[in-house]
């Protein structure tokens, strides 16, 4: 055993306690302006909402430069989809933007349906709208809960996830899954909704706007929220358009661009709803726009469920949709179709289609190229988070680092969608 005192003694012998005198005048205090600090924000940081790394250059507390570094959760979904037949690619594609899986699935199915030239039954369109709007509310609830958490409001998180749980229950009832439901199929939806679903959805849609008002009462006039969101992260409309930003971020600057209104798909023109817009495009506007969007989504859901037409929920073209189960026992033809679809899948005429939809974060466009076989030759998702992330730099440059957290929260990136 070495005694502690021994070590101390030996060290003292080898190293003199007092070092050679140095010139004090050389110890200048560096100029405050000269000193830049490079800070690695992430990839594992709860406020990045995923695995995002922001290489930021700081001058004191002010951000002078930021480089987003992405790709940490890149799983090659686009490549995987090329190896699956069209209807088996749907669950893979759904896992890109994991908060907006209905939109991923719809963009992909919509592109495939356009390539094939399929007519979608009216009931399927209404069911799609109801599910997509439920998904939009759910995605915005996750955004609101986690963003409020970033700003220090703990209880908002529980309230939002309580309501999100209700939506997940509804989705489980109609689709069998809480998340990644694979409900939207090429030609329609997987199954008709069960008895009692409509009542449950209506009860939710009727009560939800009051809940949004309660959230607004908690947050909108809160002193901390106002100080952190108002006049921070402001970017004007033209810069955002140049950067390709769409969705609530663009609408917060006063531009009412929304594909649901501008180029209605899936019977969106049957419903009455308004597009909330902001005025100056700061974080507070983004917050208000999303809050109001949730109420509008509840309105659409109510109309879609109340006005749901009777009829088939998937196309009756047996070349693209599975035949009903009971036909398999009686019809040879149905059995052949079933066998063909499950083994090889259906073939799609060659061509290229870009199919955009309005996701909770902006324009989500799916590009599908078919070479005539049963597998897509190329699937590309233009994910709004990927494009919107470029707007982070103009939003936060020359502001405080604390504002970066708030701005990133209001940007609402989903890293699964960014990296794909």
């Amino acid at each position, binding site marked *: 055993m070495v005694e502690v005192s021994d070590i101390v003694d030996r060290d003292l012998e080898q190293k003199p306690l007092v070092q050679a005198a140095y010139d004090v005048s050389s110890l200048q205090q560096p100029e405050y302006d000269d000193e830049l600090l490079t800070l690695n924000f992430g990839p594992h940081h709860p406020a990045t909402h995923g695995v995002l790394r922001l290489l930021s250059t700081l001058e004191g507390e002010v951000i002078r430069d930021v480089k987003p570094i992405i790709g940490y959760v890149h799983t090659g979904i686009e490549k995987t989809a090329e190896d699956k037949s069209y209807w088996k690619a749907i669950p893979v594609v759904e896992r890109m933007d994991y908060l907006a899986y209905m939109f991923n699935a719809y963009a992909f199915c919509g592109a495939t349906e356009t390539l094939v030239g399929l007519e979608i039954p009216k009931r399927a369109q209404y069911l799609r709208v109801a599910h997509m709007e439920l998904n939009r509310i759910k995605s915005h609830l996750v955004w609101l809960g986690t963003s409020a958490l970033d700003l220090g409001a703990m209880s908002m998180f529980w309230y939002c996830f309580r309501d999100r749980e209700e939506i997940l229950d509804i989705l489980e009832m109609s689709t069998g899954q809480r998340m990644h439901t694979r409900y939207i199929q090429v030609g329609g939806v997987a199954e008709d909704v069960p008895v009692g679903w409509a009542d449950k959805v209506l009860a939710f849609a009727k009560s939800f706007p009051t809940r949004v008002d309660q959230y607004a009462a908690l947050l909108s006039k809160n002193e901390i929220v106002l100080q952190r969101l108002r006049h921070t992260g402001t970017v004007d409309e033209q810069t955002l358009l140049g950067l390709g930003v769409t969705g609530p971020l663009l609408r917060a600057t006063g531009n009412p661009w929304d594909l649901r209104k501008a180029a209605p798909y899936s019977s969106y023109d049957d419903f009455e709803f308004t597009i909330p817009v902001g005025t100056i495009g700061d974080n507070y506007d983004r917050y208000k726009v999303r809050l109001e969007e949730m109420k509008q989504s509840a309105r659409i859901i109510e109309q879609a469920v109340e006005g749901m037409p009777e009829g088939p929920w998937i196309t009756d073209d047996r070349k693209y949709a599975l035949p009903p189960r009971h036909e398999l026992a009686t019809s040879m033809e149905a059995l052949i179709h079933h066998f063909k679809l499950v083994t090889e899948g259906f073939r799609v005429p060659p061509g290229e289609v870009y199919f955009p939809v309005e996701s909770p974060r902006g324009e989500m466009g799916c590009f599908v190229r078919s070479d005539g076989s049963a597998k897509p030759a190329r699937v590309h998702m*233009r994910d709004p988070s990927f494009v919107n992330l*470029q707007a982070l730099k103009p939003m936060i440059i020359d502001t405080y680092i604390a504002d970066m957290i708030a701005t990133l929260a209001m940007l609402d990136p989903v890293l699964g969608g960014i990296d794909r």
Partner: protein
Amino acid sequence: MPDATGLELFAQEIGDTDDQAVLGTVFFRDRATLLVSPKAVPAALQFLKGKGYTFLASVHGVDYFPEEPRLGVLYELLDMKTVDRITVKTRVHTEAPIVPSVTHDWPTANHQEREVYDMFGVHFTDHPDLRRILMPEDYEGFPQRRDFPIGGEPIIFTHSEAGGPGWWK
């Protein structure tokens, strides 16, 4: 969408200034695509910007293997006033996959061109920061090309490791 006639008129007008620019037009499922030569991409996009297509929605790559030229880059343009879309497409060979960058005119193309470079190996000249974006910086190969095999990436688990466990030593 511009109708088939409108698309031909655009092609004609671009061809008037540079007769090598337009290689063809495709009108499929009410969607207009203008096939231009790689060199003419910035000019064609500028021309369409003047026609009102001021929003570049998406830039993405395609591998047309085994057709030649193999690689394609697509630009999805959008006119927000008339809600009109048009696609500009260019094709390049894998031996010299060079396309002029449009990042200076369309800042949104920055990350998206980087992704096309990362996945397909298309070089965008005059791009301010052409680096890999999704794959690691030292990665070799272009994974979205059709001849890049699925499963080409070895995944090391302790049981599949050649030298047996103990790499941490």
